[in-house]
């Protein structure tokens, strides 16, 4: 890696770097070795501990896990689908020209954003006496709609003033200009943030565990309770791995969208190495004052 921070390393520096790498790897391996031996002493690696995943019980175990994944994804999907339009609505109210619409919306948004999601879930669950699924979905929806609204507002504010002025000048009403000129561009600019928020939403479905929604983690616990404490670690290990894999996949998609989006930004200036240390000037693609014609869509 070349960097403007330091000179290209000479033979001495390269040797130090090599020694440093070796020492770093040794330390990390050492910690891993301690962890693995501790686990081995507990008999974690005995085959019978993992038998639940391929032995006679395997179909039941996997079907439980499958149900868990499905309910996790279902809650996330329903919440995302409702939260997005709701976020657009809240954003419209938030940037309204009329003070008595704008200010109360601002208060509501601050309230929703300052609240732990799990508290909202518990609130819905206990106060409205709904089922767990509804509680999880409503909690996630309210919170994420507020975040979507703020992201979209930031997107609209980052647009050049001329966009709205031009819209108004050709005789569009304020609302028409918002919907047909500003929102499409704001959504486009903020797509990376919006998708990143979707990953957060997906992660937050695991809070359903706390309010008793039978998502993946709860299923894992039910399974471990049923099979006995010996199987807690294997069950947890597999469950956590599945969760992380799903999230990593969605994150990857988010990064792909981000790359695509930044390549399409005006002038085609893509900051491809934003993620690789201090190599680029790293201008935020969002902050750049670009004007995009609607024909580029």
């Amino acid at each position, binding site marked *: 890696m070349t960097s403007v921070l330091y000179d290209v390393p000479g033979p001495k520096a390269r040797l130090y770097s090599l020694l440093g790498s070796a020492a770093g790897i040794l330390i990390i391996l050492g910690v891993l070795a301690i962890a693995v031996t501790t686990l081995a002493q507990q008999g974690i690696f005995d085959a019978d501990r993992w038998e639940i995943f391929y032995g006679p019980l395997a179909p039941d175990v996997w079907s439980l896990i499958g149900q868990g994944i499905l309910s996790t994804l279902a809650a996330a999907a329903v919440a995302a689908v409702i939260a997005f339009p709701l976020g657009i609505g809240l954003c419209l109210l938030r940037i309204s020209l009329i003070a008595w619409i704008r200010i109360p919306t601002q208060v509501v948004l601050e309230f929703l954003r300052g609240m732990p999601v799990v*508290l909202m879930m518990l609130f819905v669950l206990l*106060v409205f006496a709904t089922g767990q699924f509804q509680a999880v979905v409503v909690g996630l929806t309210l919170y994420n709609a507020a975040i979507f609204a703020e992201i979209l507002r930031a997107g609209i504010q980052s647009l050049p003033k001329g966009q709205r002025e031009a819209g108004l000048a050709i005789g569009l009403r304020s609302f028409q200009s918002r919907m047909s000129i500003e929102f499409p561009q704001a959504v486009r600019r903020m797509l990376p943030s919006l998708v990143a928020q979707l990953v957060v939403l997906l992660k937050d479905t695991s809070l359903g565990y706390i309010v008793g929604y039978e998502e993946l983690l709860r299923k894992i*616990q039910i399974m471990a309770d049923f099979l006995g404490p010996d199987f807690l670690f294997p069950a947890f290990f597999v469950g956590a791995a599945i969760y992380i894999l799903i999230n990593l996949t969605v994150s990857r998609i988010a990064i792909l969208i981000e790359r695509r989006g930044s390549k399409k930004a005006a002038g085609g200036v893509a900051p491809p190495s934003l993620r690789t240390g201090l*190599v680029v000037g*790293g201008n935020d693609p969002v902050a750049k004052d670009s004007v995009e014609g609607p024909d580029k869509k």
Partner: protein
Amino acid sequence: MDAVIASLPEYWDGFLRTLYLSVISGIIALLVGTLLAAMRVSPVAALRGFSMFYVEVARNTPLTIIFFFAAIVLPRLGVKFEQFEVAAIIALSSYTAAFIAEAVRSGVNSVPVGQAEAARSIGMTFTQVLGFIVLPQAVRTVIPPLINILIALVKNSSVAGAFFVLELFGYGRQLSNDYGDQVLWILLGVAFFYLLITVPLGLLAHFVERKVAIAR
């Protein structure tokens, strides 16, 4: 309403414990996160790789899973904690550190290359470039997102309430059991105490953002 007034001592205790969890985990996360960010830009490949792996995995793991691991799985593997607070602090700080590392790194990235190049060309060393030129400029861009991460940390500490720590959310669950007929007020009370921390922090972030904003 009277249930809220009757349980003010519990609220206060929970409020203090939420603050305690957030402050301790926040400090640890800031230290570890900055260290991870430094590893990420360091010339040593192994450190870079480790930092990248850690950040990527921690950011994509739900906090509940980390808590579950620290509070339920670890004790069964023989790692026992005196208090569940310790498990909560480990979970919160290891999760938050990844986000702090990302914020610090993107702050360093936001400083135009020309700045570092200019500093290099007048003969400054690595430490001088970082200490006098890059970091002072990076800090300005980093502070607002850092405050936002800390706000998220305060909110995330509520997950500890589900794992045997009696902080605000934990008391909220307990009290709404005790006063089944006044759940609405009990939970609004909990919400109020959370807002007491998060709203001032949010205002601070806004203020700092305007104060240190630099036009580039």
